[in-house]
């Protein structure tokens, strides 16, 4: 069975329905990218998957366990999913090392020495081993985001959700984060990424999902979408994005 199954998610904010029945699935090792105009519910979708928001209707399964079930052990399930936020959300009172270490120690009850070793490995993997003792405020945006990726990796998750990971970064810093993400995708991590970075999508996505107005308009491989999109809207959007952002990654 697929690693992640999202079935018919509906979500309202007040009177406005932001997600109008979204369904898709992810296999192990997939990297899928969700694109679309801002405000179409992409972030909401990710939050419904790890239940930071609860959907009004629809269900989510992670590795055959239903996340949306009433009796779901949500903390255990969340520990198996990594989440990378647009605004990084590193714990301001902890050093980079402590940020990466705290999940394994407090949630997975790992011994401190083992966790420290693991944390240093992950920090090294994202290229920030020498910043281990720095506080978030002392790091650049790109560095903070890389630490937050290390923090997600330290939990050895089954999949990682990325919510516009580079949208809050200055242009020069985007590259370093994308590099880490590309390496991650190539190493076989299952990833669901919401982003505007078309270059990234083109190079590593197994499938691109185009969402607008709360529904999936079209999904397919990068080649399919870029060269012969089925829907005119898809073509329009991709064209606009290419104009704005150019080819990156």
């Amino acid at each position, binding site marked *: 069975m697929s690693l992640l199954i999202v079935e018919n998610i509906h979500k309202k904010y007040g009177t406005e329905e932001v997600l109008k029945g979204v369904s898709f699935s992810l296999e192990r090792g997939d990297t899928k990218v969700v694109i679309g105009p801002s405000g179409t519910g992409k972030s909401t979708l990710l939050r419904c998957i790890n239940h*930071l928001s609860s959907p009004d209707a629809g269900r989510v399964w992670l590795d055959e366990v239903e996340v949306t079930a009433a009796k779901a052990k949500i903390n255990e399930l969340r520990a198996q999913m990594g989440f990378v*936020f647009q605004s990084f*959300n590193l*714990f301001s*009172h902890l050093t980079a090392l402590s940020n990466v270490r705290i999940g394994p120690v407090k*949630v997975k009850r790992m011994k401190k020495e083992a966790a420290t070793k693991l944390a240093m490995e992950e920090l090294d993997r994202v290229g920030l081993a020498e910043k281990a003792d720095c506080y978030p*405020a*002392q790091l650049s945006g790109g560095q903070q985001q890389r630490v937050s990726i290390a*923090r997600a990796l330290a939990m050895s998750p089954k999949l990682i959700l990325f919510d516009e990971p580079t949208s809050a970064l200055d242009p020069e810093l985007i590259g370093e984060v994308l590099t880490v993400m590309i390496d991650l995708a190539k190493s076989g991590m299952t990833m669901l990424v919401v982003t505007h970075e078309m270059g990234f999508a083109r190079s590593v996505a197994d499938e691109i999902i185009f969402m607008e107005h709360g529904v999936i308009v079209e999904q397919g491989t990068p080649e399919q979408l870029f060269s012969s999109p089925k829907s005119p809207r898809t073509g329009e959007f991709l064209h606009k994005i290419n104009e704005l952002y150019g080819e990156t990654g």
Partner: protein
Amino acid sequence: MIFEWSWLPQLAHGLILTIEITVTCIAIGVVLGILLALGRVYGGKWISIPCSIYIQIFRGTPLLVQLLMIYYGLPSWGIMLSAFTSGVLALGLNTAAYQAEYLRGAIQAVKTGQLFAARSMGMSMVQAARYVVLPQAFRIVIPSWSNELILMLKYSSIVFSVTLLDLMGVAKRIASHNFLYFEVYIVVALFYLALVFMVTQLLRMLEKKVHIPGLGEHLEG
């Protein structure tokens, strides 16, 4: 202007009592204040509403009324407390209410993203509060808390009205013996000024020590 050196030892005793009272009441205030703040923020209806009521009552009524009520009022209901206990209790219950509000504000000042990140990695609400939100809230609250400490230092003078011989109590006693009101009270005022100054500096040093770059603001003078 007359000034007698013999006043100093007596005043020193008063000073010690003032410090004792302040420290004790702040201690009560911290413990109770934390409980009240946690109750307000994380408690369900049955806990947060009583906490809120307590806070509003103790912040909405004068400290002197609270003190006199405990010292003179309770005996009419059969509860007799010593002057020291009454003083410390009144001050402690009062400062707890204010500290609870400051801590609550600080908890709510911690960015929600921090909580999201903590929960997203599988921490329970208790873990998230304990390891992520509260450590930051405690640093954010430092300026307000320091203010409160200094405030209590000054308001502790109120206990002279229930016969305690703190700095103010001693001053009154000396002055009513020799009628040198002006001099005595000026000296006492200087004592308090010096005390406030030293404590402020101490708190500033303390705040620098626990400061984390990027978290919280610096203590104002």
